[in-house]
């Protein structure tokens, strides 16, 4: 038990390092695309370390406690992520719903902390984040339900193995409509344009992070990196057949994240209610259609 736990902590740390690097590389790529140099690939590490070493202000115990709860919750979530078929801490227990809801502890901690700062703009940011979440999670969940119903398991590693056993028949191909929805939801979850209102740097003055600086911000950055790691890994496992070994995982991971970053560069930003309307119009419909044709008609490519 304790060993698995340590293993899990390792995964979380791995995820942090991995995503921070990948994100840095992506910043470089984006920069190059936009005809700039872009920062160094390890720039994000530098940012975080700098923040962690700075002296910060605190708005009371809930402000600090929320940050701890956020990071703790996310680390706990990351511990369950299966990286490859063998590189995972809790085989069988990596239930999808654990991710879906344990990740919310971290979110809740962050939201609590932000509201605890006493800054109304932070509360507005939280409101935006939660509303966006309400928008993108439902279609995404419907797609996942379809997958779970089809495979009979909700274990993430189990799902990856299922796809591998079926001759690498990835769900991104088998359930194309669902995959589209999942990609859109993933973009929203990662805070990519056009669904990034709640976290976009330009909107930070009324985002959840408005009041942070120093170690609290640094810890939240760590938390965000791990969150993104969780979300992208989930996508890799659910739709891209997981990974037999670490190399494949890295390739898939990098490909997914880079692709999303590149796509998102093209778009402008939605308002919050537009996000909700958007997701409840097409993605939800597509997800439900996908569910119907996959479950009741058996049309799985």
């Amino acid at each position, binding site marked *: *038990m304790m060993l698995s*736990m340590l293993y*899990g*902590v390792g995964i*979380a740390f791995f995820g942090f390092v991995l995503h921070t690097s990948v994100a840095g590389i992506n910043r470089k790529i984006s920069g190059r695309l936009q005809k700039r140099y872009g920062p160094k690939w390890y720039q994000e590490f530098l940012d975080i370390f700098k923040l*962690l070493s*700075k002296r*910060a*202000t*605190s*708005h*009371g115990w809930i402000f*600090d406690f929320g*940050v*701890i*709860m956020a*990071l*703790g919750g996310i*680390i*706990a*979530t990351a*511990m369950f992520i299966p990286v490859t078929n063998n590189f995972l801490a809790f085989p*069988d*227990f990596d*239930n999808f719903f*654990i991710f879906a*809801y344990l990740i*919310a*502890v971290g*979110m*809740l901690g962050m939201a609590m902390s932000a*509201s*605890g700062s*006493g*800054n109304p*703009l932070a*509360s507005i940011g*939280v*409101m*935006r984040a*939660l*509303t966006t979440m*309400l928008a993108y*999670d*439902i279609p995404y969940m*419907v797609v996942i*339900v379809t997958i779970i*119903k089809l*495979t*009979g*398991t*909700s274990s993430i590693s189990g799902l990856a193995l299922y796809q591998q056993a079926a001759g690498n028949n990835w769900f991104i191909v088998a359930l194309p409509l669902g995959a589209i929805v999942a990609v859109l939801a993933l973009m929203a979850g990662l805070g990519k344009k056009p669904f990034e209102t709640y976290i976009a740097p330009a909107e930070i*003055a009324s985002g959840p992070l408005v009041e942070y600086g*120093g170690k609290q911000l*640094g810890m939240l950055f760590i938390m965000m990196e791990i969150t993104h790691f969780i979300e992208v890994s989930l996508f890799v496992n659910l739709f891209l057949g997981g990974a037999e070994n670490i190399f494949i995982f890295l390739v898939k991971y990098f490909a997914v994240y880079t692709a999303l970053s590149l796509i998102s560069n093209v778009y402008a930003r939605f*308002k919050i*209610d537009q996000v*909700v309307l958007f997701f409840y119009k097409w993605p939800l419909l597509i997800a*439900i259609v996908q*569910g119907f044709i996959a479950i009741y008609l058996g049309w799985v490519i």
Partner: protein
Amino acid sequence: MASIELLLIIALASGFLAYLLGRVNRVYGAIVTIVSSMFVFSSLAYFGFTDSLDTTVSILPYVTFQVTYLGMFFAVMITFIYAMVSFFNPMFIKDYKYPGAYSMLYILSMAGVIGVFFTDNFMVMFFFFEFIVWTSMFLIPLGHSRKAAVSYYAFSAVGSFALLFAIFMMREAAGSFGINAGLAAISGTNAIVVFILLIVSAFAKLGAFPLHTWLPIAHGNAPHPFSPVLSGALVKLGAFVAVMALIKITPNSYVIVALDLPLAQYLVAIFAGLSIVFGTLMAIRQDDAKKLLAYSSMSHGGYILLAFSLGSSIGLSGGFYHIVTHALATGAAFLAIAAVGRQTGTTKMSELGGVIQKMPVTYVVYLIAIISMAGIPPMGGFISKWLIFQAVIDKGLILLAAAVFFGSIGSFLYVFRPLAALFLGQEKPQFKGILKEAPVIMLIPMIVLSGMNLVTGIFPNIFLQFINKVIVELGMAPVVLGTYTIQGTNGILDPLQITIAFGIGVVIAFIIFILLKKSKQVGLMDTYTAGNFIYSEELMHYSVDFYAPIERLYEKHTTHVQDMYKSLENKVKEFGNVVKYFFFTNKPEITVFWILIIIGALLWGDLL
């Protein structure tokens, strides 16, 4: 050994004792409620779990009892809520116009609970069912609004009369009022009618769509300590009725092959899904914290109904467990809000803010409660929702899954609103200096409930094992349980593991935090305001129209159901007025005219 009837009599007697003592000193009456409800709860729990409840004593005429796991489950759970909430009574009793009556009715309604869940006779059950309705109906107007009691009564009456009709139909089929005999004997078309009636009854009691409009009114306006009882305990009577309808009788309805679900059950599930969605949407836009929680009860009632309607043992187990976890969570949340309401005099979020500064314990209680309510580990709500998800996915109900997830994610939104607007944020100047933490006697039940929320989340198997007994009694296979794990249809859950992982995560985060440089403490007003100088706490607090962007999308469609009932009410009044117009004047000719018409009708009918 303990006899149920004795307990019932003791409860009834202590009710009257409470009234008498309440006349002497109102606080004495309230203390009787604590003693009595604790006594009833602990004896039910102790003797119940040691299987030594019996029905030997028989003093009351007509009233006969049976001990079932199902009844015990409900009774213990509900009396627990009663017992916990009763600690609040001494602190609130001075606000009531009729304090003696409050204490008496409080205990009597609890006595009714014993009667409903342990009797083996439909008539007795209905008697106590009504008894609860009436006692609680008289409790509600002691709070804010008189209208609340009326609308509570209206819907309760619809529920109980539907139940009564069903009872009589079953009696006709079985020849006696025996519950088991009646449920077993009903069949054919009658079974469909009984099913519909029982479902109407369950919907009305649970406040499920479309019979929900009383819920926010009653919960929002009931006395502060009674709202948790209503929402956490009494509403669950509907679940009891739903179990009878959905599990114990099987109407001959068309089975939808693709879903492997009878049409009747599917329709119930659809309405349950609507309740979830509607309750969530309405809860998101409430300003009064109690109304918000009331709508959340509606949404959770939907979960319970949905779980029962799926007809699988994992669904049943999820439904039962959700009853427990929701009762604990909503009880704790309501109590926390009640504490705030007592200390500040209001429960409106737009009038509050920064309560955490003075009431941190209450805040933590609320936090734990909403974590459970939102279904986030490591609280009980997660386990029950997980079980329900298993059942829903197992049946492949896409639309309902969407509803379930909507309710689940939506609950993040609405439970967060009081957290941010009421507890966090800027401290309102009018409460500065006068606001204090709630008295210890009120903290006790809140802390106990929070502890229970945690226990239900970490060691659910204690409860699920008992629920398994209930399920087996209902004729279903039990859910597979390990020492710490629960086996679902598509996965396995180890709540303890999750909790430990969460603990480790928090410890790591805490170590990181503590190792880094200490922060400088600044006040809440010392915040980034984009260069503006905002000096008033009120302007620095975001609480009105919290979810404005999403509220805007549906705000025009929130009152359709109320409008429907309103227009129904108006229709009845109009009908009355039309009749009055046609039949009542101060002139004799009206009567003569109708006499002629009626004579004409008879003779015309006979001649032709």
